[in-house]
Structure formats: C-alpha cells, structure tokens
C-alpha cells in the first residue's frame, strides 16, 4: 500500500483497504496502515481564491512558516501559467521567525475564471518543492441603476 502524506502534517494518519476474496471465511478483509505525520510547514491558506470584480484590486497574502524542526529557505518561485497573476515574496528573516508572506495578486482585467499553480523551491532536502494552487474568478462589475430624474 502506498500513500502520500502531503495534507496530513501534524496529525495521525489512518487508511484502510478492503480486499474482497473468494474465501468463504473472509469474503471481506480489512488492511490498515497508520502512523503519525509531522508538520513541515504552516501554510495559510493552503490554496488561494482570487475572487472579485474586474477593475478592483484582488489579492491574497499567504503565510509560509517553517517549523522549528525542519527549517528551510525559499530559493525560487515559478508559476505554471503566470498569465493572470503576479506575486511578491517578503520575509524569511530570523526576527520574523523565518516566516514568509507571499502576496498573490490578480492581473486579469476581464470577466472569467482561471487556475494557476505556484511552485516554491526550497533549500530543504526533505521538501524541495511546495505547491500553492490559485483559483481566479473575475466577475463583471455590478451596473449601478440610474435613477430617473424627478
């Protein structure tokens, strides 16, 4: 049994698989795998939604805080598409607990949805890559109703 632990940091993980057999005594049999998964990073939010009206400033700050046991530095950021977003990384200094803030901003000017993926490269051998998904939903501005002249 093989399983990823990416989204289970800081919690106990337990998974089961039920096998069905032609053994009359064991037509269904449960296999279990469990254990503790340590947190590598505090990532808030884990994914980003950029939702708002076109023309407005739409941005979300993401906090990336390394845990004391597994310190790391961010050495590079790349966007898979990069067409509709821009991003700025600040922090990573000891007086800020080595935490970073990644500000992700929308650049799409017309109505529509998009999806992008930011890959953060770290200097950690344990987690050389961190992924942040970005979902954009840009809406048409609400039309203001004209009031008839009195």
């Amino acid at each position, binding site marked *: *049994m*093989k*399983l*990823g*632990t*990416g*989204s*289970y*940091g*800081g919690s106990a*993980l337990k*998974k*089961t*698989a*039920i*096998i*069905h*057999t*032609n*053994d*009359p*005594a*064991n037509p269904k*049999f*449960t*296999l*279990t*795998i*469990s*254990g*503790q*998964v*340590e*947190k*590598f*990073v505090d990532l808030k939010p884990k994914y980003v939604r950029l939702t708002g009206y076109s023309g407005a400033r739409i941005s979300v700050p993401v906090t990336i805080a390394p845990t004391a046991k*597994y310190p790391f530095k961010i050495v590079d950021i790349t966007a898979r598409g990069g067409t509709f977003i821009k991003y700025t990384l600040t922090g990573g200094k000891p007086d800020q607990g080595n935490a970073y803030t990644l500000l992700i901003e929308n650049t799409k000017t017309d109505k529509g949805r998009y999806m992008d993926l930011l890959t953060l490269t770290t200097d950690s051998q*344990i*987690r050389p890559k961190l992924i942040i998904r970005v979902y954009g939903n840009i809406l048409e501005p609400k039309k203001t109703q004209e009031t008839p002249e009195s």
Partner: protein
Amino acid sequence: MMHICGWAILFVLIPFSVFGQSMDTPGGPSMYVPEPSFQFESVVSGQEVEHDYIVQNKGTAELEITSVKTG
C-alpha cells in the same frame, strides 16, 4: 477532503502447501494475512509511505482477490 495520491496495493500471494488441508474450509481457499495492520514510524508531511502486505493461501483451492477498495 482527502488528498491521497497514488494509492496502490501490492499483494504477495504465497500459495501454501497443497498437501496440507485447511482446517477452516476443507477443499476451499483459506486466506491468511500475518500482519493486517501496519504502523509506520513518524514521517514528515510530503513523504510517501509504502508497505507490502503478505497474503497467504492456506487452503487447497486457488484464492482469488476479486477487488480492492481503498478508503
């Protein structure tokens, strides 16, 4: 929401001696799993955990695994 990626199960089917007889189901298959539960040592998030389960057939007929469902 679960985010398990790459589920896969590897079974090692070990046919038990065909000369013996199953006590549970004479003439039929008899499954035996020595270690149905596995506890892995603490890992850091993002690492992949893998374990092979051994499934033995202690019966005299062929043991068929018809399906596997993960959850």
